[in-house]
């Protein structure tokens, strides 16, 4: 019988127990520095791997791999200026729907696990189900964007960098009103990348 570890209550340790014991035992062969350096670089690789995997979930390819997205909102987005502007510049799903800052991003990713449940239970798996839920989904996104002061819009567009003199008269007047009334992008620009849902009320006006 191998020597028993203290605190095992006299029982023979199983595979897990032996692994745990191995990990807890101080290193006999390697220096602390060696362990730290290996650990440090392993951490970087692990972190890189984790982040890469997370960023894969931000690609357009990943988003439209679900037919719910591909058949509905993706087709609508392709007809808009965020798909292609006059010179071919494009914003993809994550540019608007996933925050750039790490802590906001991770928080959103955790919240998004709810969508996995939706996918499993097919809450918007058909065109009819999607249309029935469209207003609710839109309002949820508008609420999130408004709470963040249209943070994702402002990653590219901002009142500070906006040159209202170069804009069309109608746009420059509306933006001046928006600045004056301390409004946020999503107050007016609902429907900029996907069709506006039916049944919007006065409450949705801002």
């Amino acid at each position, binding site marked *: 019988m191998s020597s028993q570890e203290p605190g095992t209550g006299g029982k023979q340790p199983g595979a897990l127990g032996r692994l745990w014991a191995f990990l807890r035992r101080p290193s006999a062969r390697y220096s602390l520095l060696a362990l730290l350096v290996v650990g440090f670089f392993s951490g970087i690789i692990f972190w890189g791997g984790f982040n890469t995997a997370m960023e894969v979930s931000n690609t357009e390819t990943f988003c439209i791999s679900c037919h719910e997205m591909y058949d509905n909102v993706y087709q609508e987005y392709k007809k808009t200026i965020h798909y292609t502007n006059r010179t071919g510049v494009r914003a993809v799903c994550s540019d608007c729907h996933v925050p750039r800052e790490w802590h906001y991003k991770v928080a959103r990713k955790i919240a998004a696990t709810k969508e996995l449940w939706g996918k499993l239970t097919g809450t918007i798996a058909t065109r009819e189900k999607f249309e029935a839920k469209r207003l609710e989904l839109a309002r949820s996104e508008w609420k999130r964007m408004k709470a963040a002061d249209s943070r994702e819009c402002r990653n590219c567009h901002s009142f500070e960098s906006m040159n209202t003199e170069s804009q*069309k*008269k*109608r746009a420059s*007047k*509306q933006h001046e*009103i928006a600045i004056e009334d301390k409004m946020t992008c999503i107050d*007016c620009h*609902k429907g900029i990348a996907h069709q*506006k849902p039916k049944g*919007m*009320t*006065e409450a*949705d*006006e*801002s």
Partner: protein
Amino acid sequence: MHKQLIIAAAAAFAVAAGGALAAPPDWSKVPAKKITVFYPGVSPMEWIMRGTEHGGARGIKKGETCAGCHDDETADMGKKMVSGQKIEPNPQKGKAGSIPVSVQAANDGTNLYLRFSWKQPAGGGKKMDAENQVKLAFMLEDNKVELANIGGCWSTCHQDARTMPEAKDDKKTKYVKGGTVGSGKYYDLVQWKSTGKTADGYVADKRVMEGGKGLVSAEGKNDGGTWTVTFVRKLAGGGEGDIALAPGKTYNFGFAIHDDHTEGRYHHVSLGYTLGIDKKADITAAKQ
């Protein structure tokens, strides 16, 4: 000799007395304002004021006029609507999106002279009004109707008027909500039709095509595809539903052209502008 003198004097007297026969101005000396009338699709006041459909509702609530934002893009707007791309469920094939019109105005102390000139666009659409190839009407308002200072005659346009998709009564005309002649809440309406017929009426709680005494004459001619319509209208008005025009004041103004045998909502309309009698406005009718 004596007889000739009497005839000459009588003629001179007749001309002087009948202010209506006063000569129109030298139009080559009257500045022209280019106003592009456009096809408005289905855009009644109910749509205009709904923020989720029309972002401009916010601006309107802050006192911004339609022309203030849209003046330089009416051709683009007309193009979008006439093609059915936006707010038009029944696009008419071949219909022009917009028509640039030259508008001139003048007065001589007694009459207002208005002259509209435009090049006829290609047509060939369904003949809704077989009799009249073209009609032109303008409306004047004395700063009492809600939002008339914002949108000109747009305040008469509602979703339940005949030829509109939501209409239930095919006799319901344009109207002003709560409008009556007595309260001053109405538009003076003057119309010329290409058959030569004219009408001088008003739009209060409904449209009435008669009763006005202001219109002296309305003449139109087509010169190789260019229409020119000239109105002579007594400044004082005088009839039921007539607005009395006074020097030094401005009025709300708008006009529409029913081109290519159209009727009802299938016209090209102008945004709201101000007409000033001897006062600088969007369109100034200066004394000649």
